[in-house]
């Protein structure tokens, strides 16, 4: 406590820093729990105030040790989890710096969740995991989805069901309601892990369409139960708060679950009925929820809200006295405005600003003004209406303290770009100027636009009166506006020289101005006029004050002001607004500018493929130098992975991995014989121990998921259960389709995580899918069988056509031990074994008798995108169990190498 206070003062920190660190390390390793807890408390509180602690390796390791130690008490574990989080927040590199440490530590942290008995530890761990998922590396966390869903389901569905006869842990409920803390935390973790349908290009990882349907149903069930609970009438105020907590956190989450339009409609109507609630907090939260729902679920939600509930919302706008709520109402209106209802909404908002009884904070009024400006520009179908509203808005600004240069500047840009608007706008501006209290924004806009197009209003107001009008306004506005008026005057002089003497007088007067800018301008303009007069050359003026070219600023500066608006809806909304803005503003922009404008329209992101492995947290780091995903290439494989890998190249089924704990079988099948590039891979995990294996989860990691990958992994099913009883098995399957030739070394990695007898295990294995896997043997398709003559002609043709491009040679392959069992392995035996091996791969042997020591083989490899390739291979057997492989393919490039490598893998020892 004292120490924490000390950290508020810098000098003190400097002096005692080392002392404190020493003491902390000592306390952290103390055997007395109370000392350790004090130290952890200190770390938790101070950890984020100064980053010294986080950069001290002794302290971070100390805290982590407590976290992972199986003997720490639950208090210690909870505290260490959160203090570790505090340290991590101020220094991400604790986990990112050292790759091995990162893998190891994150595995440890994630495994804390396996302890399902103890919700209290879960509660402290989830924020830590959420932070890792959000800022460090989400790819580690996706596999937690089933576990986390289970917690939520237990809480919301089972925890509240009255009929359940199972004795349910009391911890999952609170004040007769599901435990709100657990729920909000779990939900916020889930929303990070699952990307909503509208934000495909965000770096969240799981798309709803590849989440297991069972999980998805569970999650949806949770939402519906929560809505049911939410409408229940509670008496106790605490109970009601909890009820709201659960309700709103799940409704906000629901849009991520790919709901049907009907479901959205239902939740919207449930929410809207809450708008009439007597409790202010509920109204606020409902509006907040609606804003989120409308911006994330798009059209169905928006339609449901605006067709039925617009009146209600306007009613709220006009009666509500809380600025927080008004702000939300305005946000909501802003979210669902479009071309259809823009007039109604803008009118409503204008009325609100105008109405004297709404003494809202000026801040809010200014916000609303900006929003009106954006909405009118974005959705106006009638440009004249747009001008009228904008001018009205500008004229208002005098009554409040709003000073929004952006609004009038934007208006001027649009008017200049649209010749059809010039006349109307100028006439309107003259009208506004003639009124007594023209606002400064109007004066500025008028100074600019009337200076540009004085001839358009010449029949309405002669040049002299226009000059008079400006001269009158000149003395009631700020210096910036004055400077603008000076420029306007010289422009007026350009079109109507008869006011020359007045203008000169005015400038002469302003030569005495105190403001240096005004003084300079008057002096310069005066000289220009005199110069033009003296030489009788009017062209000087014409050249100096040419008409404004169209503006080509593509983005609306007003949008920047909205930074704080739909933050709750995440980036998706901002992308939406900017893209709709740039497409719909074209209404207001002349044709010639529209071509350059279209460049500014964001290109829609390419649709993502549906693999669970689309996981790259850091876009800049996602590919290593060879173009492979960073996440793939940094996996550390199990020591004896190659054995299973080689087996998988040559056999369609077998053992992938064995250890004292677990055995993994695989089977590769081709579901459709017409598509021999698509495989179904099933895995079986067998528990070899006497204990249960728990927390089993797996990931299939592709070498590339972005930028035209060589193969794609699809439909990854989860292991059929997370727990394997002793000597029992659990199965899993996924599909893989080969799009282009690739190196067998880039095959997918299978990461298996499980817990057994207190130890936490991770096994990373490479599951071989080579080009040879796509071979179809001639027994299935006899038409592919080649005779020797055909083989020789084709070999020659290929040599002539491609030269050495389509060829690859590996010599001196030492054959497997099996081949050399007998010391006196003869030529015949050697050849026989070679033939068997190659046949097993799926190659076709060309029958011949002319060359004894060599076998000729042929085959066709299949790919989805690039079609099929023929492949010819000569395997020459030498004495001493050594073989040479020469491979030719019908295409140039590395395919021949890939096939030869596969063959080598199978043959070599």
């Amino acid at each position, binding site marked *: *406590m004292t120490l924490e206070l000390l950290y*508020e*003062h*810098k000098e003190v920190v400097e002096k005692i820093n080392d002392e404190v660190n020493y003491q902390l390390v000592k306390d952290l390793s103390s055997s007395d729990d*109370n000392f350790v807890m004090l130290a*952890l*408390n200190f770390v*938790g*509180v101070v*950890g*984020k*105030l100064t980053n010294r602690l986080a950069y001290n390796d002794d302290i971070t390791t100390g805290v982590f040790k407590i976290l992972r130690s199986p003997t720490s008490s639950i*208090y210690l574990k*909870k*505290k260490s989890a*959160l*203090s570790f*989080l*505090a340290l991590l*927040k101020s220094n991400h590199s604790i986990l990112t710096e050292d790759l091995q440490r990162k893998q190891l530590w994150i595995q440890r942290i994630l495994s804390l969740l396996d302890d399902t008995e103890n919700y*209290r530890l879960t*509660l*402290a761990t989830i*924020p830590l995991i959420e932070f890792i998922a959000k800022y460090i590396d989400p790819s580690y966390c996706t596999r937690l989805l089933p576990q986390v869903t289970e917690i939520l389901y237990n809480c919301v569905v089972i925890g509240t069901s009255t009929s359940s006869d199972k004795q349910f842990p009391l*911890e999952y409920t*609170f004040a007769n309601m599901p*435990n*709100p*803390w657990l729920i*909000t935390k779990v939900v*916020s973790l889930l929303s990070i892990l699952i990307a909503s349908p509208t934000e495909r290009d965000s770096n969240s990882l799981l798309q709803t369409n590849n989440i297991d349907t069972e999980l998805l149903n569970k999650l949806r069930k949770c939402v519906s139960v929560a809505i049911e609970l939410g409408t229940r009438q509670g008496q106790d105020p*605490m109970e009601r*708060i*909890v009820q*709201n*907590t659960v309700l*709103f*956190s799940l409704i*906000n989450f629901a849009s991520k679950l790919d709901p049907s339009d009907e479901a959205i409609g239902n939740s919207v109507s449930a929410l809207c009925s809450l708008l009439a609630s007597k409790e*202010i*907090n509920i*109204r*606020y*939260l409902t509006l*907040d929820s609606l804003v989120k729902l409308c911006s994330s679920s798009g059209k169905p939600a928006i339609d449901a809200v605006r067709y039925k509930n617009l009146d209600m919302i306007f009613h709220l706008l006009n009666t509500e*006295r*809380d*600025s*927080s*709520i008004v*702000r939300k109402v305005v946000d909501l209106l802003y979210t669902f405005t479009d071309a259809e209802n823009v007039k109604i909404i803008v009118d409503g908002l204008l009325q609100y600003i105008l109405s004297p009884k709404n003494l809202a904070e000026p801040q809010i009024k200014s916000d609303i003004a900006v929003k009106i400006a954006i909405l009118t520009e974005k959705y106006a179908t009638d440009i004249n209406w747009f001008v009228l509203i904008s001018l009205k808005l500008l004229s208002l600004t005098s009554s409040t303290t709003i000073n929004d240069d952006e609004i009038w500047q934007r208006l001027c840009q649009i008017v200049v770009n649209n010749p059809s608007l010039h006349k109307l706008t100028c006439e309107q501006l003259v009208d506004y100027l003639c009124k007594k209290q023209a606002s400064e924004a109007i004066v500025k806009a008028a100074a600019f636009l009337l200076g540009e197009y004085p001839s358009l209003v010449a029949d309405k107001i002669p040049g002299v009166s226009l000059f008079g009008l400006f001269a009158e306004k000149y003395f009631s506005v700020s210096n910036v506006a004055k400077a603008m008026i000076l420029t306007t005057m010289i422009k007026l002089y350009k079109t109507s020289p008869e006011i020359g003497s007045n203008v000169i007088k005015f400038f002469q007067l302003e030569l005495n101005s105190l403001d240096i800018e005004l003084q300079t301008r008057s002096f310069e303009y005066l000289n220009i006029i005199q110069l033009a007069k003296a030489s009788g050359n009017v062209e000087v003026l014409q050249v100096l004050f040419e008409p404004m070219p169209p503006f080509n600023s593509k983005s609306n500066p007003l949008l920047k002001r909205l*930074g*704080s608006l739909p*933050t*709750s809806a995440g980036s998706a909304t901002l992308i939406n607004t900017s893209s709709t803005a740039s497409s719909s503003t074209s209404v207001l922009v002349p044709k010639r500018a529209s071509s350059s404008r279209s460049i500014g329209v964001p290109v829609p992101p390419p649709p993502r493929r549906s693999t669970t492995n689309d996981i790259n947290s850091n876009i800049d780091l996602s590919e290593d130098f060879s173009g492979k995903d960073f996440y793939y290439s940094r996996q550390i494989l199990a020591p004896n992975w190659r054995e299973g890998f080689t087996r998988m190249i040559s056999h369609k089924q077998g053992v992938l991995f064995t250890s004292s704990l677990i055995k993994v079988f695989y089977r590769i099948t081709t579901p459709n014989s017409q598509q021999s590039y698509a495989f179904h891979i099933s895995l079986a995990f067998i528990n070899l121990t006497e204990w249960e294996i728990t927390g089993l989860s797996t990931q299939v990691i592709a070498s590339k998921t972005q930028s035209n990958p060589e193969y794609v992994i699809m439909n990854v099913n989860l292991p059929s259960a997370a727990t394997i009883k002793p000597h029992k098995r659990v199965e899993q399957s996924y599909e893989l389709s080969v799009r282009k030739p690739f190196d067998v070394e880039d095959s997918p990695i299978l990461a298996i995580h499980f817990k057994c007898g207190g130890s936490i295990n991770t096994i990373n294995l490479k599951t071989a899918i080579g080009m040879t896997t796509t071979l179809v043997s001639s027994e299935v398709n006899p038409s592919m069988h080649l005779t020797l003559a055909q083989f020789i002609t084709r070999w020659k043709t290929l040599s002539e056509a491609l030269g050495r491009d389509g060829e690859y040679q590996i010599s001196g392959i030492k054959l497997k031990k099996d081949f050399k069992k007998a010391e006196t392995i003869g030529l015949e035996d050697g050849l026989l074994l070679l033939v068997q091996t190659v046949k097993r791969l799926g190659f076709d042997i060309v029958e011949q008798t002319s060359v004894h020591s060599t076998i000729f083989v042929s085959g066709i490899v299949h790919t989805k995108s690039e079609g099929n390739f023929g492949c010819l291979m000569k395997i020459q057997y030498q004495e001493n169990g050594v073989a040479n492989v020469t491979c030719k393919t019908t295409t140039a490039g590395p395919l021949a190498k890939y096939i030869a490598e596969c063959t080598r893998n199978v043959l070599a020892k």
Partner: protein
Amino acid sequence: MRLVRWFDVHSSDSQRSQDAIAQIYRLISSRDHKHQSNFVEFSDSTKLIYRRYAGLYFVMGVDLLDDEPIYLCHIHLFVEVLDAFFGNVCELDIVFNFYKAYMIMDEMFIGGEIQEISKDMLLERLSILDRLD
């Protein structure tokens, strides 16, 4: 101002922190208890969740993206624990036993996250700590 705890760097110099507190005070106390919600935006990155218990305001500043109602639960739980610990708590308890109030806060929150929500557990733990002195 009875208790205050910063979980994130607000500013290096303590004067600015004091200013922030004063601003928060002005903002909250100007709000109508009956007709306004318990939530208000404070700055570009923070919103305030507050609740009044008799003469005492409990205010939490949270990220704009966080769910509001859970923080009301936080506050309520904190008050319940204070109440149970001191036995019908009043402002004076907190004023004179501020170190105990801080101790309770530390047992409930670490690094800005809640770490224990079971009232029984908290009270058991607090009574152990209380007896240590």
